[in-house]
C-alpha cells in the first residue's frame, strides 16, 4: 500500500502540473479581464518587442481591480455583444438542425437493417475524415446553386449534417442492449414511439455529449463564416472577429474573450458528466 500511495503522489503531481498548464490560459484570460483597459492596452503594446534585454511584465494582479472592460463591452460598445448574439444564433440554429437530423439518422443507421445501410455509414465516415476545406467545395457548389451564399443559412445548413455526431450517436446506439428496444417493440410500440420514448432517453448521455461537443464546434466557427459570408461583418460570429480584436488592441479583448468563454464553460459544466459517460458507453471501434 505504501508504494501504491507513493506512486499516486507522483501521478498526482504530474497530473497537477498538466492540469495547471491546461488551466493557465483560461485562468489568465479571466484574470486579465479584470484589468483596466488602459493597463491591458499598455501591456499588450509591450508585445512584439524583439529587444533581447526587454521582458514583458508578468502580470498576476491588476493595479486596480476594474470592471470597466466589461462595462465597455456590455454598455458602451455593444458591437461585441451583437457578434456574440450572432454566435448564439448560429449555435442555436445549428444545434436545432442537428437535433432534428442526427438522432434520427443515427437511429436508422443503428437500429434498422436495409440495403445500403453500410454504404451510407461508410459515406458518413468518409465525410467525417475529410477536413472542412475539402467538403467546403461541394458545399459551396450547392449553396451557390441555391442562392444561399453570403447568408446566414450558408453557415447553418451544411453544418447541421455534421457526420462526426452521426457517427458518435450511431456508435452509442449500436452499443445499446438490444433487449430494451425489443421489449418496447413487443409491447406494441411503433418505431416512432420506440425512438421517442425509449431510444432517446436511453441515449441521453451521448446526446448530451454530442450537444456539448457540437456546441463547442459551433461556438468556435471560423472557417465556415470566413468562406461563406465573404467578409459581411454584420453576419460574422464573434469567433471570427476575435482576430481583429487582437490586431487593433482596444483594451477590452480579455473581457470579450472571457465573455465568450463563459457560455462554453457553463455548457461544459452542464454536460460534463454526459460527455464522460457518453463516451465511456459508446462502442468506439
Amino acid at each position, binding site marked *: 500500500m505504501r508504494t501504491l500511495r507513493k506512486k499516486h503522489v507522483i501521478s498526482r503531481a504530474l*497530473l*497537477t502540473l*498538466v*492540469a495547471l*498548464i*491546461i*488551466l493557465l*490560459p*483560461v485562468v489568465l*484570460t479571466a484574470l486579465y479581464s479584470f484589468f483596466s483597459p488602459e493597463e491591458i492596452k499598455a501591456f*499588450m503594446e*509591450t508585445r*512584439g518587442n*524583439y529587444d533581447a534585454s*526587454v521582458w*514583458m511584465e508578468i502580470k498576476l494582479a491588476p493595479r486596480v481591480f476594474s470592471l470597466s472592460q466589461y462595462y465597455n463591452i456590455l454598455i458602451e460598445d455593444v458591437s461585441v455583444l451583437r457578434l456574440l448574439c450572432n454566435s448564439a444564433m448560429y449555435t442555436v440554429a445549428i444545434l436545432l438542425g442537428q437535433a432534428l437530423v442526427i438522432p434520427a439518422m443515427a*437511429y*436508422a*443507421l443503428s437500429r*434498422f437493417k*436495409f440495403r445500403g445501410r453500410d454504404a*451510407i455509414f461508410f459515406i458518413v465516415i468518409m465525410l467525417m475524415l475529410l*477536413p*472542412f*476545406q*475539402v467538403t*467546403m*467545395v461541394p*458545399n*459551396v*457548389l450547392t*449553396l451557390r446553386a441555391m442562392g444561399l451564399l453570403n447568408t446566414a443559412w450558408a453557415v447553418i*445548413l*451544411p453544418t447541421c*449534417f455534421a457526420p462526426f455526431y452521426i457517427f458518435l450517436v450511431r456508435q452509442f446506439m449500436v452499443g445499446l442492449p438490444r433487449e430494451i428496444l425489443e421489449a418496447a*417493440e413487443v409491447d406494441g410500440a*411503433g*418505431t416512432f414511439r420506440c425512438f421517442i420514448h425509449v431510444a432517446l432517453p436511453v441515449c441521453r448521455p451521448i446526446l448530451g455529449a454530442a450537444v456539448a*461537443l457540437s456546441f*463547442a464546434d459551433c*461556438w468556435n466557427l*471560423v*472557417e465556415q463564416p470566413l*468562406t461563406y459570408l465573404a467578409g459581411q461583418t454584420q453576419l460574422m460570429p464573434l469567433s471570427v472577429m476575435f*482576430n481583429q*480584436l*487582437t490586431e487593433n488592441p482596444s483594451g477590452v*479583448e480579455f473581457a*470579450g474573450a472571457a465573455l465568450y*468563454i463563459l457560455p*462554453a*464553460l457553463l455548457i*461544459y459544466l452542464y454536460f460534463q458528466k454526459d*460527455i*464522460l459517460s457518453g*463516451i*465511456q458507453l*459508446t462502442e*468506439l*471501434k
Partner: protein
Amino acid sequence: MFTRKRSALLYLLPGLIGLTLFYIVPFIGGIYYSLTDGSYKNAFVGLQNYINIWKNEMFLLGLKNTLELSLICTPLVWALSFIVAVLLNRLKPGGSFFRNSILMPYLMPSSAMLLIWLVLFDYGGVINRLVTSLGLMRVSWLEGAALRVPVILMFVWKNLGFAVVIFLAALQSIPEPLYEYARLEGAGFFRQAFSITLPMVVPSAFLVFVLSWINAFKIFKEVYFIGGAYPDEAVYTLQNYMNNMFGKLNYQNVTTAAYSFAIIVFIIFGALFFMQKRLQDRLN
C-alpha cells in the same frame, strides 16, 4: 433489429437529403470542375488541373506542412493522452478534477484563447522566460519555423482532453481482476501496461489516433489566427492554400486541390484501417 424499410427511410430522410444535397451530389458534380479549365468555354482538359496542381509550389508546400503538422500532432496527442489517461486511471476516485480540467479546453473557443497564447509566446513572454531559465536562447515563437511550436501546442492543449477521455473509457472498462492476476504472476508496472492495458485499448487507441489525425488535418484555425491568410511558410497549410484560392474564385484549383487532398486522406485512413484490422486480428 427492425426491418421495416419504409420507417427506416423516414428517419434517414432528413439527414440523407442534407448529406446528398450538400455533400454527395456536389462532390460528384465538382469532379466536373476539376476536369475543366474554368474559362468561359469550360473546355474539358482531362487531368491537366491535377497535373498543374501537383506542380504548384504553394499546393505542395501546403500539403507538406499539413502532413508534417499532422504527423507531429497526432502521435504527440496520442502518446500524451495515453500517459495522462493511465495516470488518471490510477487515482480512480480522486481524479475527476484533473479529468475535468483536462477536457475543458476541448470546449473552449480557441479564437478567444488565442490572445493569451500570443501573450505567453511573445518574444518577451512567459515561455521565453522559461526557455532562458533553462539556459537557452530566446526564440521568436511567432515567426518563422518556430511558429509551428505554438500552433502544435495550441492543438495539443485543445485536443488532449477528448483523447484522454476516450482512453480513460477504455482503461476503465478493463476489469481489475486482470491486473490482480498479473500482479500475482509478478508482472511489473510496464509489463502490465504492455501486456494487459495496451491490447485492451487498441480499438480506442486507434480511434484516438484517427480522431486526432482528423483534427490535425483541421489545424487551420490556430494558423489562421496567428498568421492570417498568408502565414509563414513553415505553417502554410493546405487549408490556407485552398482558402486563398477560394478567395480568388479559382474554383478549378480549389476543387482539384480538394479532391487531391481527399484522395490522400482516403489513402491514409484506408491504410490505417487496414493496419488496425491486421493488428486486431493478430492480438486476438
